[in-house]
């Protein structure tokens, strides 16, 4: 296959996935049903994973799938079930802030798009850069970024303990 075809394919793929993701995201924040929202979120996250692959980050894509779709989503669903949100539609999932929310979001979006457009107009992603290998990533994690890694581990530990303490029924 020719490089150009690859590029085209990539672009097309990007477009499709992006569209799906945006729709999913929109549904997440608009749907009347918590469970549906969770499922839509799955779609978005999966899309993100696909994008990672397009961005030549296989390892991350895998992590994304495992951590999010594997763990986080399950957590979400559990949470939803445990809080006995009825599976069906619900009235008041939104509060009165919709009036504020929309303008803010739009304003923010407009600003960002302008800024991005202004910043890197039609800058292409280099196609020939050496891809980042998982080894490099791990070298970094256990090399220069070791300290943050430790901190992170503590965070996770704390989170785990915290979650247990909080959710413990006593």
């Amino acid at each position: 296959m020719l490089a150009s075809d690859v590029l085209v394919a990539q672009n097309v793929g990007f477009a499709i996935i992006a569209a799906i993701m945006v729709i999913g995201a929109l549904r997440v924040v608009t749907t009347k049903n918590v469970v549906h929202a969770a499922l839509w979120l799955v779609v978005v996250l999966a899309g993100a994973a696909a994008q990672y692959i397009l961005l030549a980050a296989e390892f991350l894509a895998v992590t994304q799938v495992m951590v999010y779709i594997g763990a986080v989503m399950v957590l979400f669903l559990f949470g939803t079930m445990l809080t006995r949100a009825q599976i069906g539609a619900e009235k008041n999932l939104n509060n009165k802030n919709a009036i504020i929310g929309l303008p803010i979001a739009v304003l923010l979006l407009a600003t960002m798009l302008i800024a991005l457009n202004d910043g890197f107009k039609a800058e292409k992603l280099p196609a020939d850069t050496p891809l980042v290998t998982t080894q490099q990533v791990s070298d970094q994690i256990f090399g220069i970024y070791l300290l943050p890694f430790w901190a992170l581990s503590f965070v996770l530990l704390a989170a785990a303990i915290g979650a247990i303490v909080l959710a413990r029924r006593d």
Partner: protein
Amino acid sequence: MLLNQFLMLGAVLFCIGVYGVIVRKNAVLVLMSIELILNSVNINLLAFSLRNGSPDGHTFALYVIAVAAAEVGVGLAMVLLMYRNRRSVGLDDLSEMKG
């Protein structure tokens, strides 16, 4: 592929997430919106990492994911507690922090 297409996708997701955070009442949904935001960030990170050919982006994306996981864990635990205490997960009912 343009750099911007990824960045803009990130931006869109981000704003949708913001909207969700502001508008949603159900704590769980707010948490989900936050997940959206985090992912948009990740996309940006990776895009730039590809652009500069440096692995930093990957590393941080990983960290972000990890933090997100932790956050979801704690967050949901809190939601659970909240529900246990007040039979509802509506954030509007929470106003102890009212000054």
